[in-house]
């Protein structure tokens, strides 16, 4: 039971990193990404390869972050030219491209993935604590960005790119920054995931995974760091709390996405803030 709770905490921490990272891109900066799982996968594959080659634990995680952020920066460059709906589809394309590439590469294990990744140099509790600690760091970073000048600039880009440009905001710089930081967080989560499972397969990073991460952000309330955190925790715990849901996991995910968008497009954070304003009146 204790082991189960520890692994649950680890998974929740990874999901928090993914959701908060995506929220930076899609929430703060308004660039909807349907391919976030690709960066999760990039981090996982890069760290796994480095680990199998015998690199040190921290070094491997850093490699995972660096690879994800580098490709994230590249996708950021796409976002400078391709906007809104086009960009959402382009990021979806990046996800499929990643999967389609990995599946055919023998040096990446093709469909079988990479196995026999060495265990992290920590016991389970230590590893869970590390993941939770890093997740908290990511949250703090995101909160800090949200409050800083950068957060406001990102918000301006999200609301109206052209208007932001006219008031002298360097739009490309902020978009690239959002993509790089957001995908770096996904890369970190990926590296930790590789160490956690010690076996990674391409399907762990498919379109449904991307949508699941987006679901965390959207259900929590897009644009809100705490919303992303709560969304991630809810979607991690929900299938566990209701075992019977596990068979219908996608049905429930899909229905939740649909219902939240249809009735509360601003998610739980939107509901919370409207409740607060009602009480203040």
């Amino acid at each position, binding site marked *: 039971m204790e082991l189960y709770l520890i692994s649950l905490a680890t998974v929740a921490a990874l999901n928090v990193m993914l959701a908060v990272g995506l929220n930076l891109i899609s929430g703060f900066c308004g660039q909807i990404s349907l391919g976030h799982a690709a960066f999760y996968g990039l981090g996982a594959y890069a760290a796994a390869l480095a680990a199998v080659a015998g690199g040190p634990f921290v070094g491997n995680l850093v490699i995972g972050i660096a690879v994800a952020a580098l490709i994230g920066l590249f996708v950021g460059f*796409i976002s400078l030219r391709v906007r809104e*709906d086009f960009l959402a589809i382009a990021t979806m*394309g990046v996800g499929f491209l990643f999967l389609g590439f990995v599946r055919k590469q023998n040096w990446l294990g093709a469909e079988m993935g990479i196995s026999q990744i060495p265990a992290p140099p920590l016991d389970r509790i230590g590893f869970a604590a590390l993941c939770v600690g890093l997740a908290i760091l990511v949250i703090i970073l995101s909160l800090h960005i949200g409050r800083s000048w950068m957060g406001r600039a990102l918000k301006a880009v999200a609301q109206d790119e052209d208007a932001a440009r006219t008031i002298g905001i360097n739009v490309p710089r902020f978009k690239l920054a959002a993509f790089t930081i957001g995908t770096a967080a996904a890369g970190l989560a990926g590296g930790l995931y590789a160490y956690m499972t010690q076996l990674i397969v391409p399907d762990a990073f498919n379109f449904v995974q991307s949508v699941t991460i*987006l679901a965390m952000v959207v259900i929590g309330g897009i644009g809100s760091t705490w919303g992303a955190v709560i969304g991630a925790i809810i979607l991690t715990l929900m299938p566990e709390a209701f075992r019977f849901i596990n068979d*219908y*996991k996608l049905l429930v995910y899909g229905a939740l996405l649909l219902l939240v968008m249809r009735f509360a497009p601003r998610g739980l954070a939107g509901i919370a803030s409207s409740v607060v304003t009602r009480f203040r009146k």
Partner: protein
Amino acid sequence: MFQLELVVVGIVWGCTYAMMALGLTLVYGLLRILHIAHATIFTLGAYIGIVVANNTGSLWLAFPAAMLAAGIVGPLIYRLVYEPILQQPPYVALIASIGILIAMEDGFRIIFGPYGLSFLNNPWFTTIYDFGGITLNLVQIWMVAAAVILISAFALFSSVSRSGVAWRATVSDPPIASSFGIDVIRVRYTSFFIASCLAAVAGVLVGLLNNLVEPGMGNIVSYKGLAIIVLGGLGNVIGTLIASLALGVIESFGTVYLDQVLDRDAIAFLFMIIVLIVRPQGLFAPK
């Protein structure tokens, strides 16, 4: 010869993509919604078709039944999901649409089982014609024929008929169209109806072609459909048709020559990303 065969097979797939992507581009042109749940309609059509065909023994009955079901469900999705959130930012409808797609895939799995259904009697699949060395089965021929007939019918409808003119007017400027007395809401329902019928026909034909109808069969076609309408310049009908055929052919060459590097489904997106980097508005200008 081998190359020619690849082109022909590519065109057959391109026709399927065209039937799917035309619907997507109609919806996008009218409402600026990326209607990813179109795949649900496609799969629904295939299931209704196979159930009707297996129970009545007639392939011909499968098509009207599938179109009828799709023609009801498509406009219903618009009415119940999209219409209330049209004023929201575009991602809201997109994510709601993904929600429908994911939930319904699981829904089909629960109703019809995870392994898919096969046609009990699929004479079209086994009827093979030889065109000077290139063999095609009857399903593939019908695929091309259906695309040509239905898309021509649509072209005729939009250029000649009164509702077609109303439709075009609504696409280019909804407020002006409605001030000229065009019922914009009816135009929307019509678009969803036409789009859904096309998807249902494509669904039944793909089911026949693979001799298998399974819960996730619509996904890849739908994702590719999105790539195609982006390539064709969002909302641009002619561009979409050209992009569909081009993608079909590129894929069929890609599966042969890029097989060591990429799988089939990634080729569409590689092509799309390259095009977008060079021409962010797609191959053809959006409407």
